[in-house]
């Protein structure tokens, strides 16, 4: 179990490090858009759509990395009063009740959302046609990465419970 959790950690750690610099690219595109409008008098005809898409991809794909590093908002005032065993149980229950339905919805309905865009070759409708399916597919990819990280967290909680039981 520990090996699986470690492998998942490694995947998300690497992935997060690859995705994080996207924000620099977003910044550069917006600056390029401002500059081309004011210095060259010719606004870019793709920057608006590309910026928006990269923004959506950036925070969604960083979510699993954030989960690994406990970056997501949670209120632990009550949880911390409990024993480690009870905390681990609460963790497992929380993932079962709240996380499972949410991630199931993201993956299944996110997939059909992506599939509709993909099968029709949906594009943006500006001067340049940019395909929309990659950004819609991001929902599914992000959800799978988050699911993996959640599996790692739950595995560790189960290991904690076993340890306490055998001790």
């Amino acid at each position, binding site marked *: 179990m520990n090996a699986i959790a470690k492998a998942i950690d490694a995947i998300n750690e690497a992935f997060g490090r690859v995705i994080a610099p996207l924000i620099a690219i977003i910044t550069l595109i917006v*600056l390029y858009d401002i500059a081309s409008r004011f210095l060259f008098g010719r606004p870019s005809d793709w920057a608006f759509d590309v910026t928006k898409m990269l923004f959506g991809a950036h925070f969604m794909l960083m979510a699993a*990395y954030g989960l690994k590093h406990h970056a997501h908002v949670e209120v632990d005032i009550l949880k911390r009063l409990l024993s480690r065993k009870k905390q681990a149980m609460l963790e497992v229950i929380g993932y079962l009740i*709240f996380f499972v339905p949410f991630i199931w919805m993201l993956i299944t309905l996110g997939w059909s959302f992506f599939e509709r865009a993909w099968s029709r070759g949906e594009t943006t409708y500006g001067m340049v046609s940019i395909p929309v399916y990659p950004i819609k597919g991001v929902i599914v990819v992000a959800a799978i990465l988050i699911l993996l990280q959640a599996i790692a967290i739950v595995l560790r909680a189960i290991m904690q419970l076993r340890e306490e039981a055998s001790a």
Partner: protein
Amino acid sequence: MNLSPEVLTLVMFGGLMVGLFMGHPLAFVLGGVAVIGAFLGPGERILGTLINNIFGNAMDNYVLVAIPLFILMARFLNDSGVTEKMFDAMRLLLANLRGGLALTVVIVSVLLAATTGIVGASIAVMGMIALVPMLKYGYNKELSAGVIMASGCLGILIPPSIMLILMASYSPVSVGALFAGALIPGLLLGVMYALYVLIICYIKPHYGPKVPVEERAEVSTKQLLIMLAKYVVPPMSLILGVLGALFTGIATATEASAIGVFIAFILFMIFGDRKISTCFWTMIEAGKTTTMVMLVLVGATAFTGVFSRGGGMTVISDLVLAMPGGTIGALILMLFLVFILGMFLDWTGIVLLSFPIMLPIVETMGVDMLWFVVMVAVVLQTSFLTPPFGYALFYLKGVAPPGVEIVDLYKAVVPFVALILLACTLMAFFPWLITGLPNMMLGY
């Protein structure tokens, strides 16, 4: 299952509370309750709209691009080391003034408010640059956190503001009139926060300690002036650069945030360690903060979608209409409902859900629409601060150093929520605080 709207409302808010206090990540609690609520209420077939909401409201939303950019700007500014030294210099400058750093936070926040209207961004920015220096100099934890959160929320009230633009598109009041109407209330709140800081620090000197005389004496006036020039001018020029780009029409509010990143990066290259690896970790940290802010929005937009579809808002409007007490009773109740909803929902959800129901009621009562909309905008300031679901609390917790707990933040907001409610009372008795400026400028 098809639960009635009343029962569904209770179940969804109940589920939210349970999940929150179990310590499960908020984004998943919101999303999970949304999915379960969809099954229990309007039915499985509406689940697709959750994806529509997540994609359309959070991912495919150009104006939100300002969030990661302002966060990155704050990180670069931080890494340049300038901000800590700026607060150092400000502290020496205001050496004889108790609470000088807290006052600095209010002033910088009001300036920032004129550049951005995105609360997640403002709080994260101020949290990153101001909280550590204040704690370092022995400021009271609650006062420090409270002043950062409360002033950080002003961004959405002081124009330009995306909230006011959205409110205008859901009411018969124009953007210009709303901008003008919200300016005085926004500045009034800023002044009230500043006065509160000065008064509380006067009464309780240990809340915002003065600089010890010996320490102040170590630095000559000339040295202080050099410090000020070196460390106060750069961050100020950053804010003025962003503001300038906005007001001269070089960039839109969203684009101005990229200019902010650019200037902050230059400051990092001048004052920081200029290492590529530092840049890389800055982007990692900015990404973590961004995904923290945005995933809450993802969950919240899913939750609000189901709540709205399940008829939750109709439950609330029936309550208003059944209320005795005439016009004044109904107004108080409506604003109170906005306050209560603010404990659970974000402002977007509240505006979208409540305006279509409340504004017709307001219109039939013959109450000034501009006044009412701005009152709602001011009351919504509390929605970021009030537990359990004050997003300012979460955003600040996300960037706060260890030792600052969510309970500290719950305590921190109390006086500021009270100040906002006091401001509302003032504006109820003196409506010209809202209508005066639009009247003068636009003949409203």
